[in-house]
């Protein structure tokens, strides 16, 4: 796999992460389902998952960038698995609504597991790392620019929504209102 193809695939990965973050936001805004603390942590892991691809787009693919994303994906999968296990008891309807039969945290686990497999798959192709010792930034095309700024914009919106939801104190276990908007 050539370096340019690997960069394009990383930009595609960023669009995938943006899609996940946008879907979570859509559920929050349109269905009125505020994310719980563990849900927020999973969102944060999806956001951190984007750092590796951003570095790959900016400085070219490197094993260390993929390794960072792998560590994040493992942490995210562990957080999602904990939430699955919390609601696996008989009689527990789970937290929030289900999408295509699975709750969001189950989809999050599937997403992180898929990310681990895809990153490991990308690491199989050595030719993308040719010239990886250079530290000069690469010129990103418009496709990569849109991918990176989509993710950054969504995370900036999450800063605002989390501030509105939790206020300046600890987030409630089962949030139902935006604390800062309460009168």
């Amino acid at each position, binding site marked *: 796999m050539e370096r340019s193809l690997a960069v394009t695939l990383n930009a595609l990965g960023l669009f995938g992460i943006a899609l996940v973050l946008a879907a979570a936001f859509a559920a929050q805004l349109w269905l009125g389902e505020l994310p719980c*603390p*563990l849900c*927020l*942590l999973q*969102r*944060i*892991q999806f*956001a*951190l998952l*984007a*750092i590796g691809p*951003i*570095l790959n787009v*900016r*400085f070219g693919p490197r094993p*260390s960038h993929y390794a*960072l994303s792998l*560590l*994040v994906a493992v*942490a995210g999968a*562990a*957080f999602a698995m*904990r939430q699955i296990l*919390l609601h696996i*008891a*008989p*009689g*527990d*309807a789970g*937290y929030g609504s289900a999408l295509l039969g699975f709750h969001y945290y189950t989809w999050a686990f599937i997403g992180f597991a898929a990310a681990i497999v895809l990153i490991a798959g990308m690491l199989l192709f050595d030719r993308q790392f040719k010239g990886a010792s250079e*530290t000069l930034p690469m010129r990103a095309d418009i496709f990569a620019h849109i991918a*990176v700024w989509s*993710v*950054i914009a969504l*995370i*900036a919106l*999450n*800063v605002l929504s*989390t*501030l509105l939801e*939790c*206020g*300046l*104190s*600890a*987030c409630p*276990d*089962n949030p139902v209102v935006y604390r800062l908007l309460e009168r």
Partner: protein
Amino acid sequence: MEFTALFLAVTIVMLVAWWGSRAAAMVVAAAALIASVATYLHHATDALNLSF
């Protein structure tokens, strides 16, 4: 509050990754990852209000 801070930290990491140096981005990304895992471990021992 800690989640707002974590989202803000990730935004800063992304801006450093896009505009700053590679080494700085790797360091702040690792710090954000450690902070998120520490937040998880801090809350992992909270009492649970299960819905059944």
